[in-house]
């Protein structure tokens, strides 16, 4: 890893940590202010490290500097206030402020997750602000992750910060009810983060392991503290474990990003699969079944090699669709239909899908026709996909398929 990459990774994780601590423990009610301090900290780091290189404990360095910057600023303000009025605000007493420790950061992050998923914000705003503050995403990255545009993301961030002003402090007590009501959104944010890592929409390399691990860390951490519906959290962790078990195998080829059937199965991480099974077991002991339970079960079957799995997978997709509809789930179901019954039935079902602008839809159609040995239709659909594809490496993939089908292998 180059220094540049290392640096951006450190900044990314430390950004959210610092903002969380500053607002939660030092009582900064203005998010913009907390963000400014963190930015200043990074500026200082860039300057200092460009001469001397990255220090041995870069995170500790950043934490110390952020803390100092904040206190300096506070001191300046306090002097100012003292001169104008003799009042000293009790909240600004920083003499016994805690050091920024790992424990403090974990605790702040947990609080942050729930505070950001405030029901006063709509779902998309919650996601925007969570991606910024928990994951350190730039506006550009949020835009791509949510398939939105820059202007609307900026607007949402601005509005979210305004609504959250004053909400993100240590004084704001989170009740059991908050933890219960906001859990769904918190889980969605974690899953989105994992997704972004598993198949990045922002970078060409597609896979950003650090985000996957970060999402899993947040999940495990959450599971240790969540009291109600903790089985949902377990199910989500299981789901992430099963997917993450293939990360290494996916990246092992020269091209990177190997497809499922191209992967060397001996590279699948057995430990993670086992972990996933454990968590799925925990999850099934709970009272409720969530979509994460079902998705985790599907992901489990994908870690297995037997052929009978497709009937199970189809059944699970059917069940998933009774809980929540999404055209993507329906699309995946049609592939299971092809495997469990016949490509004909799958093609019939896939025709009904409203995904006519989706690259992967045409890839799926091409695959279904390939299973049916209908070369003309396969080529037709691959060409359609080629017209819609945006990412360079996906384009290569489709071109490769097209080439091999034209050659007649």
């Amino acid at each position, binding site marked *: 890893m180059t220094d540049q990459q290392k640096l951006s990774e450190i900044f990314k994780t430390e950004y959210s940590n610092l903002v969380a601590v500053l607002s939660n423990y030092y009582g900064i009610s203005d998010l913009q202010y907390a963000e400014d301090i963190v930015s200043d900290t990074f500026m200082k780091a860039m300057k200092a490290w460009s001469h001397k290189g990255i220090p041995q404990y870069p995170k500790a360095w950043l934490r110390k500097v952020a803390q100092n910057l904040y206190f300096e600023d506070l001191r300046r303000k306090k002097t100012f206030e003292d001169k104008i009025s003799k009042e000293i605000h009790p909240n600004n007493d920083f003499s016994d402020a805690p050091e920024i420790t790992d424990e403090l950061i974990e605790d702040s992050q947990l609080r942050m997750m729930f505070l950001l998923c405030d029901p006063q914000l709509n779902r998309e705003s919650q996601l925007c602000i969570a991606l910024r503050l928990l994951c350190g995403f730039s506006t550009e990255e949020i835009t791509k992750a949510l398939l939105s545009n820059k202007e609307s993301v900026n607007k949402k961030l601005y509005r979210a910060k305004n609504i959250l002003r004053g909400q993100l402090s240590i004084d704001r007590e989170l009740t059991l009810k908050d933890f219960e009501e906001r859990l769904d959104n918190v889980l969605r944010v974690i899953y989105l983060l994992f997704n972004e890592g598993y198949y990045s929409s922002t970078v060409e390399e597609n896979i950003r392991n650090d985000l996957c691990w970060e999402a899993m860390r947040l999940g495990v951490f959450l599971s240790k503290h969540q009291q109600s519906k903790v089985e949902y959290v377990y199910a989500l962790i299981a789901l992430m474990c099963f997917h993450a078990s293939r990360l290494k195998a996916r990246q092992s080829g020269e091209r990177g990003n190997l497809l499922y059937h191209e992967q060397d199965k001996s590279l699948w991480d057995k430990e993670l699969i086992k972990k996933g099974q454990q968590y799925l077991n925990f999850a099934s002991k709970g009272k409720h079944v969530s979509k994460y339970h079902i998705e985790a079960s599907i992901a489990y079957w994908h870690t297995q090699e037997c052929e009978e799995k497709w009937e199970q997978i189809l059944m699970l997709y059917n069940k998933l669709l009774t809980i929540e509809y999404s055209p*993507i789930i329906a699309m995946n179901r049609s592939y299971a239909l092809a495997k469990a019954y016949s490509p004909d039935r799958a093609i019939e079902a896939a025709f009904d899908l409203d995904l006519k602008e989706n690259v992967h839809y045409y890839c799926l159609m091409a695959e279904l026709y390939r299973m049916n040995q209908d070369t003309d239709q396969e080529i037709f659909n691959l060409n359609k996909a080629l017209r819609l594809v945006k990412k360079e490496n996906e384009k290569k993939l489709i071109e490769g398929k097209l080439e091999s089908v034209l050659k007649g292998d």
Partner: protein
Amino acid sequence: MTCPICEILIIKEMKIIFHNLKQKNMKDFMMLFYSEPNPNMEPTPEEIEAEIKLWMDWIGGIGAKGKLKHAGEALGFEGKTVHSDGSITDGPYTEAKEIVGGFIIVTADNLEEAVALTKGCPVLSIGGKAEVREIMPTGDIPND
């Protein structure tokens, strides 16, 4: 959610979901399934499983079209009927030989479309029937 072929995790469907939530002018229809109960039938666990699978495949198909509102319930054969004079009789069936065995709720633009969704319904292949009825809106109760 991964796509099994291309190893692509997809949650970026957010937009599409939001879009679907906004779809208006769709109506809800209840499908009621009638069949003649056979008291002598004692299915094996495998037969029950196969039966459930048939139903789930069909219901999943409606779900895959985005037309499933409620996955419904299956009803047992046993029950009692309470009459207006206060009397209670055995069995859910009084006059008709066929009884309601279950229901699901679907959404569709109109009755014709809802009726078309019954295609492949397992009750039809055992000589039963499916009744499709529009659910009347009952005021301004929010959906959520």
